[in-house]
């Protein structure tokens, strides 16, 4: 019965083919570290955000007169409403944490390099969508930080050449952040996750075309690939379990650490909070924005700081495969970049003073320099490593590449 049903389906839809080729037998390098778990984790977080979000939408009211109250209604009167809300608010931070680790892994191991450029760029698109979704979602509780965060960020679009004023009004739906802004952000915050699901599909199609990279950065011989099931199904499940422990610790015990105190005060357009800080995941970029004295320059620098990741496949010019594994200078640069991100995060969180302004300025310069010096550094490093002598696997890789050219 089951067999004949399956046969019936398979004549009309490649179900068995799909399960076999893309889930069960899908060839995966056997040497992936636990850092490779974060892709599937991001998928899980996306699903959890979607599910909790839809249930929240059943009780939330997108109207400036009732939005704040409806959140308290969810927290107090809806059965397990507090759980839905805390899972969703913590989930937003978790999403960024997972995605940033996923990106850091990609950068560290050079997984963005040929032939994985499109995989990387679809990921870049996903990051932008995620940022937009989180930004709009943050307005919905209609607290002080929601309001002023949205006011400050939409105001940045004033820097648009020629149409600045119009673009800001178009985004807000009004001259000020208000009811029109709230309803449109709500509509888009509901829509975007589904676009993200679509973009994830594209990301996965690209992945399954080029297959996973691995810590060596050299494609493995077929005998060193193992089927996804059971090896990576179980490894991903273990990753999920560990993730859920950490996530639950936040949700059940310290869910408020990630909610700004000022956001527990209803939005008040007449009263600006003492310091307006964005959510932690935007802080480094916010610091870059503030490090450039004029608005247009700051907005351009901030935009570039997010988009510059897309240039990585071109900036990294080394013929040595992979990322940090065989390349000490690249590894060094990676950790400089990471440390610089933390410094920028700190600068973004504190009020501007003369000292933090200088630190922010220098950290911004280092941020861009790590990218812009990469072509030169990667070439220098390549020459040095070739002179010093390479491990056999890399030697072989370079030899094969040279042969292919002839």
């Amino acid at each position, binding site marked *: 019965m089951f067999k004949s049903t399956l046969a019936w389906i398979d004549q009309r839809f490649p179900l068995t083919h799909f399960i076999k080729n893309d889930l069960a037998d899908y060839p995966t390098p056997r040497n992936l570290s636990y850092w490779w778990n974060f892709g599937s984790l991001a998928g899980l977080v996306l699903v959890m955000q979607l599910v909790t979000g839809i249930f929240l939408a059943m009780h939330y009211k997108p109207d400036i007169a009732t939005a704040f109250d409806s959140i308290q209604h969810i927290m107090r009167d809806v059965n397990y409403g*507090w759980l839905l809300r805390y899972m969703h608010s913590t989930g937003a931070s978790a999403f960024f944490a997972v995605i940033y680790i996923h990106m850091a892994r990609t950068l560290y191991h050079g997984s963005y390099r040929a032939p994985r450029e499109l995989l990387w760029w679809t990921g870049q698109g996903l990051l932008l969508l995620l940022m937009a979704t989180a930004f709009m979602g943050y307005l919905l509780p209609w607290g002080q930080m929601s309001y002023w965060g949205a006011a400050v960020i939409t105001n940045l679009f004033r820097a648009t050449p020629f149409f600045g004023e119009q673009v800001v009004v178009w985004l807000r739906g009004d001259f000020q952040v208000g009811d029109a802004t709230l309803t449109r952000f709500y509509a888009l915050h509901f829509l975007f996750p589904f676009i993200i699901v679509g973009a994830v599909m594209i990301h996965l199609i690209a992945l399954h075309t080029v297959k996973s990279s691995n810590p060596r950065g050299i494609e493995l011989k077929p005998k060193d690939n193992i089927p996804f099931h059971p090896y990576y199904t179980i490894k991903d499940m273990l990753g999920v379990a560990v993730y859920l422990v950490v996530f639950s610790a936040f949700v059940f015990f310290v869910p408020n*650490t990630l909610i700004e105190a000022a956001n527990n005060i209803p939005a008040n357009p007449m009263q600006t909070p003492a310091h307006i800080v964005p959510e932690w995941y935007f802080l480094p970029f916010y610091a870059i924005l503030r490090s450039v004295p004029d608005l247009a320059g700051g907005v351009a620098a901030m935009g570039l700081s997010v988009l510059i990741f897309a240039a990585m496949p071109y900036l990294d010019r080394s013929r040595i495969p992979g990322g940090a594994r065989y390349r000490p200078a690249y590894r060094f640069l990676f950790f400089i970049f990471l440390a610089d991100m933390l410094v920028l995060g700190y600068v973004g969180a504190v009020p501007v003073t003369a000292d933090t302004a200088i630190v922010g300025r220098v950290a911004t310069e280092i941020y861009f320099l790590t990218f812009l010096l990469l072509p030169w550094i990667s070439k220098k490093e390549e020459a040095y490593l070739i002179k010093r002598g390479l491990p056999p696997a890399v030697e072989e890789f370079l030899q094969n590449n040279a042969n292919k050219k002839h």
Partner: protein
Amino acid sequence: MNKRFLLPLLLSLFSSFALANEIELEHDPIPTDRASVLRGAEQVATVCSSCHGLKYVQYRSLLDLGIAKETVDVWRGDKPLNSAMKPQMAPDDAAAAFGVTPPDLSLMAVAREGGVHYLYSYLMGYGVGANGETTNRIFTVTKMPDVLGISAASDAKQREEISAKAKDITAFLNWAADPRAGDRRSLGIYVIIYLLIMTILLFLWKKQIWRKIDAMEKL
């Protein structure tokens, strides 16, 4: 609230900087036991309620908290049980009297940087200024009078009593800001234990499945 536990963690590192160069708050532990919360409820219902409301706390939920029906009846007067705790003074009258409407207290325990510690420090922060006027070291220009009378309390025993009162009040307002926090923590313990057991089992299972691969030469 629980920020102290997480300070080493990066995430909270980011969000707690705003406190850095502001007035020192008092960090006395705030009780969470039921008796303190109940004593605090009485203070809030009888003292603070003359000016402040708690619009997300219904009188009915005070019954769930364990306060006797007769007591709640006295507090609510002719308001129905499912009414929110309203201020006795009409907001407009209060605004006229103080120059500002006293803010709602439902979320006060989480609405200021420093959370419950802010609240306690604020209530205890009144003192006498150079010209004999009452000031508050936490919120210098506050228009709220020193209702607990800490600025006039001179002997240690009296200050101790007021401090205990302020802690009870803070405990109640902390409950009011998130009445489900108790359920949340008790459920959380089971969830975490369950997940930890699952993690250990999955770890062993993973080891088992991977043992051949793990024995291979490292790549």
